[in-house]
């Protein structure tokens, strides 16, 4: 028997599956699938649907520069991680923001049209935030796998076209 979780898995695999196809792939009817997806959206379980883009494959004049940034912060009685994250997450340049364990506190992903733009964003907008004590920026040079999707897995289908 299919579970509601399976619908999440299918959408994570391909958010463009139609409700009709999801019904065919599971034990749910099409209207049940639509209903469950609505519920996921309303409950904030599904937050959105996005394409996984391999920027290396995009024409050069539309290049995007991405960087991950390590942030160290200091907290005081009035300021929590949530307060700081609120201020950082609001910038549209920030594509992801996570609190992590280890040597630094926040793991930030930033996107811009050029290295210059990204550098300026970090130095002008992020570094000056009073609680931030240190930033270390790593530009992404090549991306091999995003959101579980390998860009070139080299696993060619070399099977015979018909076999017993």
């Amino acid at each position, binding site marked *: 028997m299919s579970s509601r979780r399976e619908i999440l898995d299918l959408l994570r695999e391909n958010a463009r599956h139609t409700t009709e196809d999801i019904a065919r792939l599971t034990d749910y009817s099409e209207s049940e699938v639509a209903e469950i997806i609505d519920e996921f959206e309303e409950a904030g379980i599904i937050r959105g649907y996005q394409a996984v883009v391999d920027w290396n494959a995009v024409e050069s004049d539309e290049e995007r520069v991405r960087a991950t940034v390590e942030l160290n912060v200091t907290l005081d009685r009035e300021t929590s991680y949530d307060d700081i994250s609120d201020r950082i997450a609001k910038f549209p340049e920030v594509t992801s923001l996570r609190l992590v364990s280890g040597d630094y506190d926040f793991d930030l992903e930033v996107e811009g049209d050029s290295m210059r733009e990204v550098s300026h964003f970090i130095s002008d907008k992020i570094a000056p935030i009073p609680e931030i004590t240190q930033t270390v920026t790593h530009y992404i040079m090549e991306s091999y796998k995003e959101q579980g999707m390998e860009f070139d897995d080299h696993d060619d289908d070399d099977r015979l076209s018909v076999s*017993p």
Partner: protein
Amino acid sequence: MTFEPADRVDSVPPSGIRRFFELAEEMDDIISLGVGEPDFSAPWAAREAAIASLERGQTSYTANRGKRELRERIADYEAATHNLQYDPDEEILVTAGASEGLDLAFRALLNPGDSIAIAQPCYVSYVPGATFAGIDVIDVPTRAEDEFKLTREVLESSGAADADALVYCYPNNPTGATMTAEEMASVAAFCRENDLLVFADEIYADLTYEHEHTSIATLPGMRERTVVFNGFSKAFAMTGFRLGYAMAPPEAIQAMNRIHQYSMLSAPTTAQHAAMEALDNCRDEVTEMAAQYDRRRKYVLTRFEEMGLDCFPAAGAFYAFPECPWDDASEFAESLLQEERVAVVPGTAFGEGGSGHLRVSYATGLDDLKEAMARIESFLD
């Protein structure tokens, strides 16, 4: 003196799938639903274990029966997943694919002139394998109205009671049929009553979607008369590694090993290293692949229903076996290939009982599967 094929070779016609394969190979851009192996590559951890074993220089023969560490893992795995208890020292033989195991059983456990009942439609190697071993074949065609399950009725009506052994494969290639514990029990009773050995090809045992697989060797009075065959090809997606195993009482394994030690020496060493890793660390991948097959299965069965194509709800392996809407399934498959560039295999390629049907493999990525179904639909219109 010139080379002439020996009589036993001459007596076996070329595989029925061959002609179709040649036709498909000549064409570009086809979507093939004619493939009898997983579309997934072997789990990465298993591949890496194979590479690491090569780097360590582990390239010698192993024990004839296979590495002991592998046989131990196989014993544990079969106990945990199929409730089978076999001793790794005496009762397990690692072979180059389950196919080698079957060939060994035919030659080591039956005499020329003995007869074997073969449940059909079936994998293409059973009948030739028996013939090469000089064994007479009793065809046991299963029926569409029984959803291609093996029943006491078809065993009786085909004269299987006179056979020395029975061979079958469930979950089945090419039909996708499975047998419940109850249905298997009636086959077991028939084999006990008529004193038949059983060669149970369980290569698809981990790919069932409606109910758990029941091995006939777990049923009362059956372990002592059964050889169970399994391997890493299907569930672990490791076909090219060529690694399988046979499980049976010591005297059967001893006899099979007597041939194996001279003809094969030992199964491929690199593959044995990959298989150990597969059993240790790749079971989640097996579960995930099975979940993917199940979704595709539902998709294919639903699409056939929408097209008005009769198909029983196949619950195992990665095959559906719809009824062919034309009288001649080979002609249908050929036209479908030529007009819509979709390959399926006519059921006749798999022996008695397969005629009038098509084997549709859903071991194909979902995008291709969707496109293939759309093409079949437009072909039918």
